[in-house]
């Protein structure tokens, strides 16, 4: 599986409702040991939302302060961001990722990490 196959895929809950598209993939360095790198990067979860604009500008990090007009604009566009724990992924189809439970109880990405 490639990262590019996950990015942009639509996330669908058990009721068949779309929850958003994958904007980013959260990794945690606690997987099996791999060569000189140490613990490998485990796929921890998916950051999803409906609007992709500004997903990679860096405003997910709280330390990124300015410039204010851009930060506000990106924040406004991105208010619908949510986080899906990998455990909730049921199946991966081309362009679609099925998750367990309902899309309503997905937390905001910043609350999850």
């Amino acid at each position: 599986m490639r990262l590019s196959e996950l990015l942009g895929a639509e996330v669908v809950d058990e009721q068949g409702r779309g929850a958003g598209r994958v904007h980013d993939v959260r990794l945690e360095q606690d997987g099996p040991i791999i060569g000189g790198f140490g613990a490998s990067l485990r796929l921890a979860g998916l950051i999803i939302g409906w609007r992709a604009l500004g997903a990679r500008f860096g405003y997910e990090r709280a330390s990124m302060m300015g410039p204010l007009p851009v930060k506000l604009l990106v924040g406004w566009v991105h208010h619908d961001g949510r986080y899906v724990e990998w455990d909730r992924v049921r199946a991966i189809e081309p362009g679609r990722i099925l998750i367990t439970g309902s899309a309503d109880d997905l937390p905001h990405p910043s609350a999850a990490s």
Partner: protein
Amino acid sequence: MAGRVLDAGLDLFDRQLLDKDARLAGKVDDLEFSFPEGGGPPHVTAILAGPGALAGRLGGRLGAWLEGLANRLRDSQERRPARIPFGVVKRIGSCVDLSVAKEELETDRVDAWIGDHVISRIPGARHAPE
């Protein structure tokens, strides 16, 4: 035990690769995930780099063309992008440092070919500018 947290798209995708001598060695064009044999969540096992990997991201006709070109340039018969096993990654910062020399990477083939067949034939190619 909680390890370091990274967002793949933001912190890893499209980052510059540096070899052990800090020479530029391509970009993180894609990441390969593998599922562990005993089950459990997937983890990153390789960096995919070079035109073959990039083609998959661009999509469309341009992507298909680039993929064909990449496959023709590689010696191996397999139609897959060049990969860099994640075990040789040393550090992830504003760029990704590798612990091996560029020449040992699969991704270096095109550069080496152009270097050997075009650039090194021009006088003065082997000397630093003065």
